[in-house]
C-alpha cells in the first residue's frame, strides 16, 4: 500500500492501542420468519478498540444495522459470543455504556429541543442543575445553541439529527452507535454534518461505530471500514483507513482517499452485493 506523500506521515488517531470495547467471536443471528429462516449474521469476528471510528458498509440486507443492534442489545444473537466493554451487551446497556443515534432523529414531538436532550438525563436521575449544564454544553457542541425552546417540527432535518446526536452525547457515554444517521439528509447537509461529526469525534475521543451505505462517507469518517455482504450477512473485508486526523472535505479528491474508496468498492463487489 503506497500512501499519497502529503498524507503519509499522519498516524491514525487512535489514542494508544486501547482496550477492546467490542469483541465479537463467531457471532451469528438467525431470524425465524414465516417462510423459513433468514441468516442475518454469520460467523462475524470483529474487535473494536477504544477511540476507533469504525464504519459498517454494505448493501441493504447485509446485516450491518443488525450487527449494530446486537451491540446495543436491541437484538439477541443466536450463535457465538460478543462483549461490550468486557460485559454482555445486556449488562453494557444496563450500565448505559453507549449512546445510540437512529436513522431518523426520533425526537419526541411534544418535547422542546432542550427537553429532548434532557430525556436520557431525566431517566438516569441527573439532578436539575447538572441537566441544564449538560443540555447547554451538548447543544453548543452540535451548534444548536439558541434552539433550546424550539420544538422538533420547527427545525430542519439536519438540525433535528444534530439534536439527536446531542441527546446521545448528553449522558457522556464512551461509545457512540450510529445507524445511518445522515442517510435521510441531502448531500450538502450530509457533507456538513460529516465534517462536524469528525470534529466532534476529535474533541470527545469517543469510540464510534457508524453504519452507512455511502462509500465516500465511510472513507471520510473512519479509521477502519468493515465491508459486509448479504445472504448470509457477514464481514468480507476490513480495510484500514489511515487518512490521518486532519480531514478537510477536500481530502475526498486526493489519490489516497480515492484509492481507499476504490478498495471498499472492490470489497463490496467481491461480496456479490451488487450483482
Amino acid at each position, binding site marked *: 500500500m503506497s500512501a499519497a506523500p502529503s498524507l503519509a506521515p499522519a498516524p491514525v488517531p487512535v489514542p494508544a492501542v486501547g482496550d477492546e470495547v467490542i469483541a465479537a467471536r463467531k457471532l451469528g443471528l438467525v431470524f425465524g420468519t414465516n417462510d423459513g429462516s433468514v441468516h442475518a449474521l454469520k460467523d462475524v469476528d470483529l474487535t473494536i478498540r477504544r477511540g476507533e471510528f469504525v464504519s459498517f458498509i454494505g448493501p441493504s440486507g447485509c446485516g450491518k444495522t443488525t450487527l449494530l443492534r446486537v451491540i*446495543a*442489545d*436491541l437484538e439477541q444473537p443466536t450463535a457465538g459470543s460478543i462483549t461490550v466493554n468486557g460485559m454482555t451487551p445486556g449488562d453494557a*446497556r*444496563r450500565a*448505559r455504556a*453507549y*449512546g*445510540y443515534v*437512529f*436513522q*431518523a432523529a*426520533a425526537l*419526541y*414531538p*411534544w*418535547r*422542546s429541543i432542550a427537553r429532548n436532550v434532557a*430525556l*436520557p438525563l*431525566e*431517566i*438516569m436521575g441527573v439532578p436539575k442543575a447538572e441537566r441544564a449544564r449538560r443540555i447547554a454544553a451538548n447543544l453548543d457542541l452540535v451548534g444548536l445553541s439558541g434552539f433550546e425552546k424550539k*420544538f422538533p*417540527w420547527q427545525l430542519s432535518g439536519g438540525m433535528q439529527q444534530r439534536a439527536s446526536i446531542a441527546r446521545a452525547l448528553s*449522558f457522556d457515554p464512551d461509545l457512540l452507535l450510529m445507524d445511518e444517521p445522515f442517510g435521510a439528509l441531502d448531500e450538502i447537509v450530509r457533507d456538513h454534518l460529516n465534517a462536524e461529526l469528525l470534529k466532534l469525534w476529535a474533541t470527545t475521543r469517543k469510540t464510534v461505530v457508524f453504519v452507512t451505505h455511502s462509500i465516500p462517507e465511510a472513507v471520510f469518517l473512519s479509521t477502519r471500514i468493515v465491508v459486509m455482504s448479504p445472504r448470509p450477512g457477514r464481514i468480507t473485508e476490513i480495510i484500514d483507513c489511515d487518512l490521518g486526523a486532519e480531514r478537510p472535505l477536500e481530502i475526498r479528491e486526493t489519490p489516497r482517499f480515492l484509492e481507499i474508496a476504490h478498495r471498499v468498492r472492490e470489497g463490496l463487489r467481491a461480496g456479490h452485493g451488487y450483482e
Partner: protein
Amino acid sequence: MTLSAPIAEPGAGIGYRARPSLRSRIAGGRAGPVLVVLVAVLVLWYAGAVLLNWPTESARLARGNPEVSPAEILTATLSAQRPVLPAPHQIAVEIWNTTVKVSPTAPRSLVYHAGVTLGPTLLGFALGTLLGVALAVGIIHSRTLDKSLMPWVITSQTIPILAIAPMVIVVLNSVGISGLVPKAIISTYLSFFPVTVGMVKGLRSPDAMHLDLMRTYNASGRQTLAKLRAPASLPFLFASMKVAVAAALVGAIVGELPTGAQAGLGARLLAGSYYGQTIQIWSALVAASAMAGVLVWLVGLAETTARRRAGARA
C-alpha cells in the same frame, strides 16, 4: 369624493379593498355550513310536523266544524297541545318558559333538571375515564390482562344498558345507596369503554424507534409509560374522552328512567311520555343534546390547551 389616483390609471384602486359581502363572510366562515344544515333541518322539521300532526288535528277540528279550511288545520298542526311532532318554535317557547321564566331551583325548571343529571354525568365521566385509563395501562403491560380482560371489556358493552340500569339502581337502593351514586355508576359503565379502547391503542402508538430509544437508556416500564407512552397517547385520550362524556350523559339519563326518579332530564322524558307531553319530551331532549354539546366542547377546549402546552403546531 375624490380618489388619489383616477380609476383608469395604473395604481388606481391600490389600497382600496372591497369589504367582503355578508354572503361571502357566511359562506367562507365556519358558521356557513352549519347554518345551511340548520336551515335544512328546520324546513324538514316543519314539513314533518305538518304531515304528522295533520290527521289528528284535522279530525279534531272536523268534530266541531265540518267546514274547516286547510289553512286552519295548517295553523293547528303547528300549535297543537299534544302534537305527534311538535314544531321547533313550540319547543323553543317551552324551553324559554322552563329556563328563563322560572327560578333555576323550581321543579319545573329545565335548568334544575339538567343540573340533577349533570352531577352523576360528571362523576361517572371522571370515574369512567380513570377506570378506562387504568385498565388500558394494565392491558398494555400484561399479556395475561390483555388476554383475560379485553374480551370482558368488549362483552360488557354488548349487554343493553337498559337491562343493567334497573338492576344497578335496585341493588344499590337495597343497600341504602340512592341518588347520585347509582346513576354515576351507570355513567361509568358506559364511559370507561371508549377510554379503555382508545388508550390501549394510544399507549401502543409510539413507534419502534421511540421505544428502542427508551431501551437504550435502560428506562423502566414506568419511565417509558410516563415519558413516552402517556404523552404519545394524549390525542387518543381526548378523542375517546369526547365519546365518553356523551356516553356518560346517556348513562345518567338512563339511570333516571327505571325508578321513576322525580328529578333529572331522564325523569322529564319519562314524565313527558306518561302524560303525552311531547313538547316537554322534546325540550328535555334538546336540553340533553345541548348539554352534551357543551361537555364535548369543554373536552375539546382541554385538548387544545394540552396540545398547546405540548408544542403542537398552531
